[in-house]
């Protein structure tokens, strides 16, 4: 072993993290607030739908996923004061009106025959948008100054990928006929159009493009 008192570089040769990042403290807080608002809307909807879906396996998955998104909301709630926002509720808002309309449209299906629509909204539209927004944020923020955000996103993304796979597999198992495939596609297109209008979960620039 080398002498304990020997000087070493603060960054080991394999540590290639950069200080530069695309987001200021304010911008990070703004995005975190939108993430929190959307994760909240998602866990509330998943919770509400549990009683409305007759498929037992879907019912249990929704219960499991409901908590994961609540936990994501909690992570953002705790991160906000660390980003100088002492009143987290102030930034817990939708990115724009289109996001409100998106959530309204996503949570519209209620009847027990509409499990496909419920799952399409979450697993073919919202969660893919979460994955892209979080990935963009993680890859563009400072790996040193904003490491707490990156750490949270890494945990969250793990959940999002797992849940997306669960939801997509449930959908594939539920879509049996060409008519059901059309239903799923039509609902996805309807929601996707509103999401395009919103510009993504944090508004235009959610994944870098304005």
């Amino acid at each position, binding site marked *: 072993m080398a002498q304990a008192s020997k000087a070493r570089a603060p960054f080991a040769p394999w540590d290639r993290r950069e200080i530069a990042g695309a987001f200021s403290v304010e911008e990070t807080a703004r995005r975190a607030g939108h993430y929190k608002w959307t994760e*909240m809307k998602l*866990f*509330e*909807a*998943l*919770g*509400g*739908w*549990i*009683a*409305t*879906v*007759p*498929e*037992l396996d879907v*019912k*249990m*998955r*929704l*219960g*499991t996923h*409901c*908590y*994961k*998104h*609540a*936990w994501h*909301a*909690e992570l953002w*709630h705790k991160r906000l004061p660390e980003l100088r926002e002492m009143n987290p*509720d102030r930034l817990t808002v939708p990115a724009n009106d289109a996001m409100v309309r998106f959530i309204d449209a996503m*949570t*519209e*299906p*209620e009847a*027990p025959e509409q499990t496909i629509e419920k799952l399409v909204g979450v697993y073919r539209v919202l969660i893919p948008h979460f994955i892209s927004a979080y990935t963009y944020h993680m890859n563009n923020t400072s790996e040193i100054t904003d490491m707490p955000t990156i750490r949270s996103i890494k945990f969250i993304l793990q959940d999002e990928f797992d849940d997306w796979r669960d939801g997509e597999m449930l959908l594939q198992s539920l879509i049996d006929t060409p008519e059901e495939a059309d239903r799923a596609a039509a609902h996805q297109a309807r929601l996707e159009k509103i999401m395009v209008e919103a510009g993504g979960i944090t508004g235009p620039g959610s994944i870098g493009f304005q």
Partner: protein
Amino acid sequence: MRKFMPASELARDERFSQITQRDRMADGRSTVVLNNDQNRRSNNRLTPQRGDASEAARALMHGIFVGEIQALEGAGRTCWDFTTGEEAPFALKLDMARQAWDEARHVEISCKLSDWMGAEIGQYAENTVLFEAACSDDPVLRLAGVNRALEGLAIDVFTTMKEFGEIAGDPYLEFCEDWMLADEVTHVKMGSDWLRKVTENDPERRKKALEFQNIVDKMFSYGGSRSESDESSLMIARRFRELAGFTDTEVDYIAEVSMQALNERKAQIAERQAAVASKN
């Protein structure tokens, strides 16, 4: 999706057959066996020593299974039905989401245990009484009804089942019930803590919530199936209830109400048996 959903609309697949508490109360029969020898009491406690233990345990496991589904649905609805901040604190809703996950696991565990015990999904009727207790439009009343009364009952049920597994030497049942019991104690504690916190400056609301809890406790004691007497199939799990935040006075009250229900039931049965005997 609208707010507040009636129990009659709970979505189920074709295997399930639902009944309400009203249907249950219309059933004049009993699961309490009377001993005609006045000097001896019947032991109806659900233990392996009962001749019909396997079937009774299986039926109870199915009851647990559907109860867990309704608890999952109730916790989920609390996340949806109340506006965050205005009607229910954010942290309360996080707890309810956590509970939804726990209940989803309990449904999974109950499915596995039912399979192990030889029961099939939908083999028994589903009483929707548990969700009925979760329909209040005041989140505090809902917590009192669901987290304190319903989950309190779950503590009694799981303690009984855990002991059943222990005595029978069934490691699978004992293991699963022990884990579920740990979660239920947490849920009751959540209810106790939120009830105190939310009604801290509103004694009237707290009184109403506790009254509602008492009503639900009475409902769950219907038929005398739970009491401290071994004439009831389920015990009252005092130690775990204490861990969950029930005071001695509260447990004494539940014990008293349950005993009253048992005695009422016994009187009814004796009356009915006499009527049947005179008819024959």
